[in-house]
């Protein structure tokens, strides 16, 4: 809740109503408490109310139990990150209370379950405390043997009261969520919700009301990054995929397995990562643009086959939902440390395309772009996202599906002759002719991992190897010419340029806004096409004294992260420096600004 709009707590009398433009709510409990469900309801409600929303969650790597949080930021204006500090903390347990109090803004509100939490008097001066017997009241409301299952929905009722949320809309959401289940489940959920909603009267001494959001042109939809990516692939015309389960990629494969049959397609669960990519490449060879995907370790396993697809020039989509590495690493935490393997992973010279969506909406559209690049240039495209973007929920303008959905079925019209590796094309690529296509010259192509001549037959000729290497490189240079360079956020000249990629776009932009509001000269540039890079970035860098590459990976042996290293090798510009971290959490706005300022002020790495 922005400072300007918050009012002082009134004492006694009816709860006071304050108008607010945004709120950050953190719900802390255990993973089986269903707190993700509350977050999901709030996010969906915000989307339907034309508000902006962004969520952030952590889950333990264990199957059951373990601390878990869900943070949701709802705003009537632009919401760029999940928020550095919470306005309201809902704590279910003592450990939730103690562990997350520090994430609450001074003067913020702590609502705790008095059945489980004993507040610390020391904190009561800094935070407004409201203790409610959430567990026992839930049991009372639902009755029966459910114990305190349903306290998440009870809590949703509390929040609905506190923020004056639209009750009929929430009731509708509850109905939709539990539709198809036992009627008693819906009844219990509604009972818990209303118990929470009415219970709060008289206990909350202040309630809030969001100011109306600006009317949007199209309705908003609400989903997480994994959903947006999976549905984007379907819109792009992808009808075949293969994969192996691994967190946090599995959601995409589950979605495609469930949804593709509706479109006449299929997604195959394979025995391992190598079989998965091989099956997808097989389907790609046969005329589809197929998808496989994984996270960290699985991507390592796929790299030999990826090299074949590059050599044989077969289209392919590989999704890498990054998590903390190396090895099994931090499976449920966010990191951006797979950029190197995405760009360079594999033996030999193996140019491939790497693109990185910047937010949930971008996951949808970049999936379509990836498919079109793969099909046009006969090349594997790696879509690199991360755990944070995969699981965070955002609301965005509904795409015009009639316009964006496409059919990419193979063309089997007979051809006169076909050279799969034609060296005479100016940009190194030509449309593929796939099995099932009659070739009137009687000369049929072989797709191969051996260095080959124009028809795909093996050759040991050094000249051909050099020409084919150049062909595989040239087509990506042609692609680079097609990519529209990213726009600088903020003035195109100044002191500091923050460069980012992937899920960090929001906090970086918010950092720019905050710094500029304080009078600092800061702009940002978000790179969505990592390999090949768009043309002209050197001109952007020339406009600034300092370029910080903000990324969630280690600073490496030489002091800059993975994109930082790539940009330095590409532009030989020593003012490009790293601003990195690997604590497994998304960047806070404050972290970015403090780190950038600290580096410049202390001059640790002088120009």
């Amino acid at each position, binding site marked *: 809740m922005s400072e300007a709009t918050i009012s002082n707590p009134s004492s006694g009398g009816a709860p006071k109503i304050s108008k607010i433009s945004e709120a950050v709510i953190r719900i802390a409990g255990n993973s089986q408490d269903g707190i993700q469900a509350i977050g999901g309801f709030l996010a969906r409600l915000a989307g339907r109310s034309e508000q902006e929303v962004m969520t952030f969650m952590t889950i333990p790597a264990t199957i059951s139990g373990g601390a878990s949080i869900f943070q949701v930021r709802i705003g009537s204006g632009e919401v760029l990150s999940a928020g550095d500090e919470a306005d309201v903390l809902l704590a279910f347990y003592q450990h939730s209370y103690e562990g997350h109090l520090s994430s609450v803004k001074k003067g913020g509100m702590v609502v705790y379950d008095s059945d489980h939490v004993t507040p610390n008097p020391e904190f009561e001066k800094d935070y407004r405390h409201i203790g409610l017997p959430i567990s026992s009241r839930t049991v009372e409301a639902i009755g029966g043997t459910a114990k305190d299952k349903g306290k998440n929905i009870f809590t949703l009722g509390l929040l609905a009261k506190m923020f004056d949320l639209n009750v009929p809309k929430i009731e509708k959401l509850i109905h939709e969520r539990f539709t198809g289940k036992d009627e008693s489940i819906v009844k219990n959920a509604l009972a818990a919700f209303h118990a929470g909603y009415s219970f709060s009267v008289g206990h909350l001494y202040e309630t809030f009301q969001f100011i109306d959001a600006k009317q949007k042109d199209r309705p908003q939809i609400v989903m997480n990054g994994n959903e947006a990516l999976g549905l984007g692939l379907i819109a792009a015309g992808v009808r075949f995929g293969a994969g192996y389960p691994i967190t946090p990629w599995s959601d995409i494969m589950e979605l495609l397995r469930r949804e593709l049959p509706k479109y006449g397609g299929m997604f195959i669960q394979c025995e391992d990562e190598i079989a998965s990519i091989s099956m997808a490449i097989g389907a790609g060879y046969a005329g589809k643009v197929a998808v496989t995907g994984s996270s960290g370790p699985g991507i390592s396993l796929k790299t030999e086959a990826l090299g074949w697809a590059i050599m044989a020039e077969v289209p392919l989509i590989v999704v890498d939902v990054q998590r903390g590495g190396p090895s099994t690493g931090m499976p449920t935490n966010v990191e951006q440390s797979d950029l190197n393997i995405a760009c360079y992973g594999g033996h030999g010279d193996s140019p491939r395309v790497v693109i990185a969506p910047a937010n949930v909406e971008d996951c949808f559209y970049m999936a379509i772009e990836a498919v079109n690049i793969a099909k046009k240039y006969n090349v594997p495209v790696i879509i690199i996202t991360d755990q944070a973007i995969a699981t965070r929920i955002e609301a965005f303008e509904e795409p015009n599906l009639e316009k964006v959905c496409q059919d990419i079925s193979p063309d089997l019209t007979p051809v006169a002759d076909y050279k799969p590796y034609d060296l005479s094309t100016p940009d190194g690529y030509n*449309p593929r002719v796939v099995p099932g296509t009659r070739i009137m010259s009687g000369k049929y192509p072989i797709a191969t991992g051996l260095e080959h001549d124009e028809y795909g037959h093996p050759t040991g000729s050094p000249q051909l190897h050099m020409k084919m290497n150049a062909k595989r490189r040239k087509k990506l240079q042609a692609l680079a010419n097609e990519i529209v360079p990213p726009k600088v956020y903020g003035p195109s000249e100044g002191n500091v340029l923050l460069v980012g990629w992937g899920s960090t776009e929001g906090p970086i932009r918010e950092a720019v806004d905050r710094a500029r509001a304080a009078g600092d000269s800061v702009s940002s540039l978000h790179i969505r096409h990592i390999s090949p890079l768009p043309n002209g970035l050197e001109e952007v860098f020339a406009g600034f004294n300092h370029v910080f590459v903000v990324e969630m990976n280690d600073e490496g042996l030489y002091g800059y992260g993975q994109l930082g290293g790539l940009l330095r090798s590409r532009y030989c510009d020593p003012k490009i420096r790293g601003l990195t971290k690997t604590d497994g959490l998304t960047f806070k706005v404050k972290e970015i600004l403090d780190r950038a300022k600290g580096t410049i002020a202390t001059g640790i790495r002088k120009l």
Partner: protein
Amino acid sequence: MSNPITETPARASILAAPAVPTLGEERKGLTKKEVAADHPTWCPGCGDFSVLALYFKLIEKRKLWHEKITTVAGIGCSSRFPYFVQAHGAHYIHGRALPFASGISLSRPDLHLFVFGGDGDAFSIGGNHVNHTARKNIKMSYLIMDNWVYGLTKKQTSPTSPLGFKSKTDIWGAVDQPINPMKQLISAGATFVARTTTTNVNHLLQMMEQAMDHDGFSVIECFSECVEFYEGAFDASNPRKGGKFELVPETHDVTDEMAAYKLADEPFPGKFGVFYKVNRPTKNALEQNIICKAREKVGAKKDWETLQATFNRLK
């Protein structure tokens, strides 16, 4: 969003000249001349030549069309196969030809799909893929040219090398128990398992035809001598070299799994023919069934309308 790359170039520039025959026409069987491509790189006397010659014969006899044949292989001497066949084909990476071929089989049921490989591909680096392709019963024919040795890399022990075989990696003789291919294939769930040898070409052709006609994952283990690194390995199965070639008895019930294991347990040279053959729904059919049911629910909606229905639930 900015800059989606949309247009993909049309195929117009390479479209066929005038007389493009329509599909569905009658065509003569392709002759060896029409279907042979590169000259094989195999050593003179290699057993693999027979398999290639009989593949040509199969294509001619069964009147398969160029464009409908897809030949796939992994890595090894035998896996050079696709280069020698004038048809669509792919030479994939070591051990992974089966999942690659599965991608073709499942997405393009209109093609005749043949996979060729050696014992290293099938039982060493790609062992687990054999198990899973068999268990899923993905429709394709897989011919394993088993020579009991790594030939392309010049005589190392293979997973089927018999105990005591002297190779560059076992100079004192192989010490590891060899795989029994037939037992492994049957237990993995392959629905057609046959055994043959390159020295009996009629039998080899019969097995290839039966494998092709089988609706499911059909596997043939075919002994194919490496004259360079394991000369005489299969003499005991070759009547011309004093051995004996015995067929699976006519009384053998091919659907009897235990009887098949018994056959597979016989010491070399054992019996030749179909050990095991059952009908089980293919992965191809099971997936089509899932698709049909899903499409029934969707009704006459266009794809974008189906997606719209999903989006409506995300509002």
